[in-house]
């Protein structure tokens, strides 16, 4: 690690705590990644002084949180809700930078949920900043018992595997639920995740209060022409968790050139689409499902909870998704009216039970249509079938590796 030590000596701290590196940094000459600079080199003095000394967090308005330190220092973070998929243009970010310099301590902190927090050290300034942000057309709010944000994956913006478009769903849901960001209070923290396919890059679908997941809802078709030029049959065969895919072989040479997908085993998990582009879904059949009630926090009487599917299929209706928006709004509204204070959706459902949940929301009881298992395994429903397909997958895998 002599290199790392050498690199550290090259780091120079300048007035604004920006650590410049010097020397030859061309990747060909120095392919090894450069480790992030230790945080003490860039965190501003106000925060560094109070590291680990915070004693209180307090909600001033739904957009401002106050952190009080043992030393008496106060830091306020003002939360701005970003556009879906946190796609900021350089111009917009520059505007935020200007505001952070004018009213704040010059720190902007993006959060994994797609929000931006601007830090400041004075309540007066924080309130002015909130006003100014609103005047500039930003949506502020979302601290405490409010809708924190709707976090979609990139989907059609750059993704090659997305089944449906997620940012447009986030936009449509946001327009319907925007009152919960500032004006109306919810019983507890609410975060919504939207993912374009079961890979769920939009956030953990299994631990989200409400998750919307793009769902192929069909056995995919294979574009043989394209597959023969870009696909690797054995890779795709190995990717299938239920062994529904077999290689298609040229009878004369025995060489695999394509794949066959057996519809009776396929569970529409999208793993093959993830491996190769030459797999097609019929856009008329694709849809979304809605999961509800997960959380990763070890809080409340239940600790972590895994979400459950409550709506197995709604056909895709871009760009405004009217049915989906109605369903999600209904679930959130019913929860807001019926839950006790401090109860997240998962805790609320654990208390009242799933029968009551379906009764209150008026949604058709999904358990009538599908049977679920709660054990880990290849994404399957009845246990006997899952065991069968697990062995299939194993056999195919072993077979494929021997060729």
């Amino acid at each position, binding site marked *: 690690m002599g290199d*790392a030590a050498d690199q550290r000596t090259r780091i120079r701290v300048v007035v*604004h*705590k*920006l650590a410049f590196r010097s020397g030859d940094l*061309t*990747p060909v000459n120095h*392919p*090894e*990644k450069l480790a*992030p*600079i*230790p*945080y003490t080199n*860039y965190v501003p003095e106000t*925060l560094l002084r109070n590291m680990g000394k*915070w004693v*209180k967090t307090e909600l001033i308005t739904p957009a401002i949180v106050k952190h009080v330190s043992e030393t008496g220092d106060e830091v306020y973070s003002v939360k701005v809700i*970003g556009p879906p998929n*946190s*796609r*900021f*243009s350089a111009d*917009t970010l520059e505007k935020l*930078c200007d505001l952070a310099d004018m009213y704040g301590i010059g*720190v*902007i*902190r993006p959060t994994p949920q797609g929000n931006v927090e601007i830090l400041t050290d004075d309540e007066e300034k924080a309130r002015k900043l909130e006003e100014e942000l609103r005047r500039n057309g930003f949506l502020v709010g979302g601290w405490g018992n409010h809708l924190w944000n709707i976090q979609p*994956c990139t*989907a*059609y*913006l750059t993704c*090659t595997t997305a089944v449906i478009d997620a940012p447009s769903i986030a*936009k449509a849901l946001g327009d319907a639920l925007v009152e919960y960001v500032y004006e109306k209070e919810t019983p507890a923290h609410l975060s919504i995740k939207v993912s374009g396919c079961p*890979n769920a890059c939009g956030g*953990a679908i*299994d631990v989200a209060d409400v998750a919307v997941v793009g769902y192929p*809802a069909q056995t995919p078709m294979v574009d043989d022409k394209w597959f023969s030029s870009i696909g690797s049959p054995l890779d795709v065969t190995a990717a299938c968790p239920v062994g529904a895919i077999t290689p298609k072989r040229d009878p004369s040479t025995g060489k695999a050139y394509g794949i066959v997908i057996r519809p009776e085993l396929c*569970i*529409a998990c999208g793993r093959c689409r993830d491996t190769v582009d030459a797999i*097609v879904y019929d856009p*008329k059949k694709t849809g979304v499902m809605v999961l509800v009630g997960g959380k*990763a*926090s*070890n809080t409340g009487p*239940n*600790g*972590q909870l895994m979400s459950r599917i409550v709506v*197995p*299929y*709604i056909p895709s209706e871009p*760009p405004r998704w009217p049915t989906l928006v*109605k*369903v999600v709004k*209904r679930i959130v509204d019913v929860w807001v009216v019926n839950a006790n204070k401090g109860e997240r959706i998962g805790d609320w459902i654990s208390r009242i039970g799933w029968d009551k949940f379906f009764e209150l929301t*008026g*949604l*058709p009881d999904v358990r009538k*249509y599908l049977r679920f298992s709660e054990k*880990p395994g290849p*994404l399957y429903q009845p246990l006997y079938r899952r065991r069968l397909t697990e062995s299939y997958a194993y056999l195919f895998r072993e077979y494929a590796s021997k060729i």
Partner: protein
Amino acid sequence: MASEELPIDPSLWPEPPPKEKVEEYLAELEKGPWPSHVTELKKTKYPVYIYGMGLVAGVTPWATSAAKAPGIYSGVLSRMSHPWTRISPPIFEDHARVLIPSAQVFTTTLLRFLIEASRKYGWGLLQFIGGTGDVVLNVVREKLIELNVFLRRIGLDIGGSGDVMRNTVSCPGPLLCPYAVYDTLKARDFTYSCLIDWATYPQFPYKIKFKYSGCPIDCLKAQARADYVVIGTWRGAPDVDDERLKQWIEEGGDVEELVKSCPTGAISWGGSKLSIDGSKCVKCMECIRRAYPAIKPGKERGLTVLVGGTIKSRNGPKLAKVLIPFIPLPSPDKLEEALMTMFQIVRDRIVPKWDEEGWRRERIGDTLIRVTWHRFLSDFAKFDPDLASKITKVKPTEPYYTYGITFFNMSDEQKKKYLEDLNKAMEAWQ
């Protein structure tokens, strides 16, 4: 462009949609009070029309491509417009994942440099930040190397894609939050200084992720998303400060409510003294959140290491399992030693074995299910076989557990029936 020139089978893919329809859909997404991504994209050089084509057709308009970037082994992703869009010559969309400072603290000076980079070498568009925890910067293909040099100059780097150790994320921890048990920012920096080789060269069956959460609230959702999760915890009961508790009660704190809020009934109030039964405490943070700083995380602090949480994987979404229940952390400056205990197991035992036995595109959580938990403990983590059997036999008392979400293929009749019922239900909501 004639259809026979296409590399795809045109009968399976949609036709390019009419221009008016695309513009109508895009305009639809600019309405309403919620911030609009289309409005943002129109301020940049992003080809928003292609996005609109995808929206109308219901199929993604991007296909995989590859950019030539000598010396950059991870962190650059390339797309080209999908053959079905019939855009000729194809439009390329390349983006770089930028490793950002721990806890995503950007000074405006640094951010202004990043904005300058995006204008100079890219499309003036940033994803600030994505689910992986790094900023995604759209870049013009020819300027990729220049961008990397620029980013290195200002103290950042490109990285975190492919079969490498992905970007390590930490919660803000002690920087802004009162509950953090250990210094998550330092832990993240330390991971990079130990495992920089893993972050550079793709060498594994699939990706590796480390995530650091400061307390059991786990705001990062680390246990659902990372292969190796470190969560701050403590042994026994939370620490009660009688002086401060008195002050808290004087300020209007409701002790009865506090006692009632404990899910396991571990708290008892004797009229003047609050006592918490450590053996009953499940670390739900409820009392701490209500009465901080009168009640704090316990004095005997440490780290819990979990393994195998994934969403995108062979066996579907799953939560992580406890690998090491407790690594003692006697004082904050012993953090590096405590983390080293974990790295020794992960770096020297689990990952080499996974490298050997793991199937392609199989994360550790799936390998763990395939080889069973017992074999994982004895063969991968190389625990003493007796200890491994002991661990698997004992019903876990830790608050972490795992099971999966199911996927299924609904038949057309099932779908039709379900939608009929749903529509009927929706009529009643009015």
